[in-house]
């Protein structure tokens, strides 16, 4: 009993020490949603290495979208120079496996395509080297590195090198990874992302991109939290999804239509962010 108490006290102390080394509010960015921001409170650092994990290949679009959203959030600050380029390093193989990036899609997500420098790498080695070069250039806002699968060379040393470079230049570095089990790295935060059902728009159309994110690791000791977030490309910020506000279970086909309508009405009233049009 006493031993566990000591260990938890020690953990807290360590977390406090770690938090002291975290950057100040000036070089931290927020997600824009009240839920995670309340917990994280200015501990998401610019000029650091962040990891975004997809548990499986089919979750890659969601992970890429979430990483891009984080990069856009990191770029959003009145005091910083605006419209600095974002470098996205992708491996060739992804084009056939997950699709190539589309300019209209990028704009629809909130990024002006002319700000993007797309680097297509032949293999993970080339990708890592190009991303490392980009991370050294302080005129770049953010770097997204998207290798295919889980390359061996992306080990502790490689991530430390990336993190050091990002720390010196102030470039925020996002590393997209796809693995069942996260491997060792020196990332400041590690997120696990998967898509969830969006809040449907009128006429049952799919709504804004919605993610279920879990903070697997946090330098300040705030890991373990999970949120459901929705990306709003117009304001370039996340929104919380209230877990109870959505009718995620469709009405079984056999039930009478009246009950269906009633259920719709009941949930419709409390949908907080329903978009018109």
């Amino acid at each position, binding site marked *: 009993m006493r031993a566990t108490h000591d260990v938890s006290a020690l953990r807290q102390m360590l977390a406090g020490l770690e938090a002291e080394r975290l950057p100040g509010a000036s070089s931290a960015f927020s997600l824009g949603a009240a839920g995670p921001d309340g917990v994280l409170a200015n501990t998401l650092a610019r000029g650091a290495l962040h990891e975004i994990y997809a548990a499986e290949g089919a979750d890659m679009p969601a992970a890429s979208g979430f990483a891009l959203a984080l990069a856009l959030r990191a770029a959003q600050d009145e005091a910083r120079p605006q419209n600095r380029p974002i470098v996205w390093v992708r491996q060739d193989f992804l084009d056939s496996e997950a699709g190539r990036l589309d300019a209209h899609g990028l704009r629809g997500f909130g990024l002006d395509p002319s700000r993007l*420098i797309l*680097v297509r790498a032949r293999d993970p080695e080339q990708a890592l080297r190009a991303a490392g070069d980009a991370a050294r250039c302080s005129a770049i806002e953010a770097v997204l590195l998207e290798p295919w699968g889980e390359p061996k060379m992306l080990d502790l040393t490689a991530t430390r090198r990336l993190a050091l470079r990002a720390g010196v230049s102030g470039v925020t570095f996002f590393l997209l990874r796809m693995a069942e089990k996260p491997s060792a790295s020196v990332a400041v935060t590690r997120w696990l992302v*998967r898509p969830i059902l969006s809040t449907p728009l009128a006429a049952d159309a799919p709504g804004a991109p919605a993610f279920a994110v879990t903070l697997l690791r946090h330098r300040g000791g705030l890991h373990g939290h999970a949120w459901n977030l929705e990306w709003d490309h117009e304001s370039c910020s996340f929104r919380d999804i209230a877990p109870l506000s959505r009718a995620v279970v469709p009405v079984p086909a056999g039930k009478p239509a009246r009950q269906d309508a009633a259920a719709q009405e009941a949930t419709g009233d409390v949908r907080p962010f329903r978009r018109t049009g």
Partner: protein
Amino acid sequence: MSGPSAVPDEALPLVFVERVKGALRLSAISPQARAVGLAPGLTLADARARIPALAVADHDPVADAAFLERIADDCDRWTPLVALDGVDGLVLDITGCAHLFGGEATMRTRVTDHLQRHGLTLRAVVAGTPEAARALARCGKGGVVPEGREAECVALLPISVLGLPGETVTGLSRAGLKTIGDLASRPGTPLAARFGEELLTRLRRTLGHEDVRIVPRRPLPACIAERRFAEPIARAEDVEGALGLLIDDLALMLETRGDGGRAFEASFFRADGAVRRIAVETARPSRDPTSLGRLFHEKLDALVDPLDPGFGFDLVRLAVLRAEPLAPAQVNLDGRAIEEEEVGALIDRLAARMGRDRVLRFMMRDTHDPARAASLVPAADPPAPACPMPEEGLARPLMMFDPPQPIEALAEVPDGPPLRFRWRRVLHEVVHAEGPERIAAEWWRQGNGAPTRDYYRVENREGRRFWLFRIGLYDREPGPPRWFVHGLFP
């Protein structure tokens, strides 16, 4: 002229044959074959009848042309102005370079010696105009024509060297005009009236009365720096060191001109005549020795087949192929200029290592076809005038498949969204769907027959969002409708 590899047997007279109108004819022969009385144009059967012991090889014009190109590359070491003349000749414009090699006569000897060392047989003539030199080299013995004496030297040459059409040559011969001297002594106007202005132009140029520059096979560089080595250098460090010195020289030259280079080319001339060129381009005009040095270093590092020095390079040349005005950079208050400079340098570095087509930037096209709406252009290219993006319409996926991937889909109603579909062996159940967004083919590009596509934005039970389309309309267009997944939403 033949490549050194095509010699089957040293002892026999060698002939090259080519198929002309169904018959094998000799196209080129060795001096030995000429000595035993053969001549080009003879059929192979005739030649064999005369000389049964013949070494025969196929004539390969492509290899000949490549060989001539290689020699021309090597000749770049004397002057940047080199042009090909027919299939077996080179014209070098040595205006202003002869004094670097000890005068015209000495230079001629040096060029001849250098090429003869590589096993070539050649005749070289230095004359006031390219045409005069060409005519003399093709008929005479070679040498240097004293200045202003071209007319005397070419007077006795046959008119065939003027390179005129066959009927003109025949016509002139019938009139008794057999040499250039004969033509030159006649008044020009009747000749022009009978045989065309072309004849007079060629005549004037051959006689040295009129001089036009040659059209060099490679564009003339904006400026050049080069180092010659009495002892060829072979070590990679030496080569890069030499390149570094050249970059410094060039940077100084560019600064005096107020220019920056956009495209640079380093040429490495091997002692045995092979030439290797390495080109580097920059996104913006540059004359910064450090960044240029780094670019060349990246490029040399990334070469698939490394720079093979062989017996060493005896000449390294660095040329600015394209220069643009570059004013000394003025730093804005917000440091924007410096930032753009840095981004440009990053793009250059990545492009030099990975290739220009791997560092890209989006360029929008004015079209409604989703597959063609945006294209990727090298980021190192100067930004094109941006085509205004259409006002934000319906949502487009972040990732697109090219080409779209076929799926099996089941729709409730013929023109409705799918209920469920199978993609990559996984069954997806559609929960939310939006559509159709009907996108017709661009008839002005693909013709009238291209089918219309109905696009749907769908979401499955796990929250994965897809962009699907059905090709072909029910009943209205031929063939059964097929479904594809074209993109993925985040």
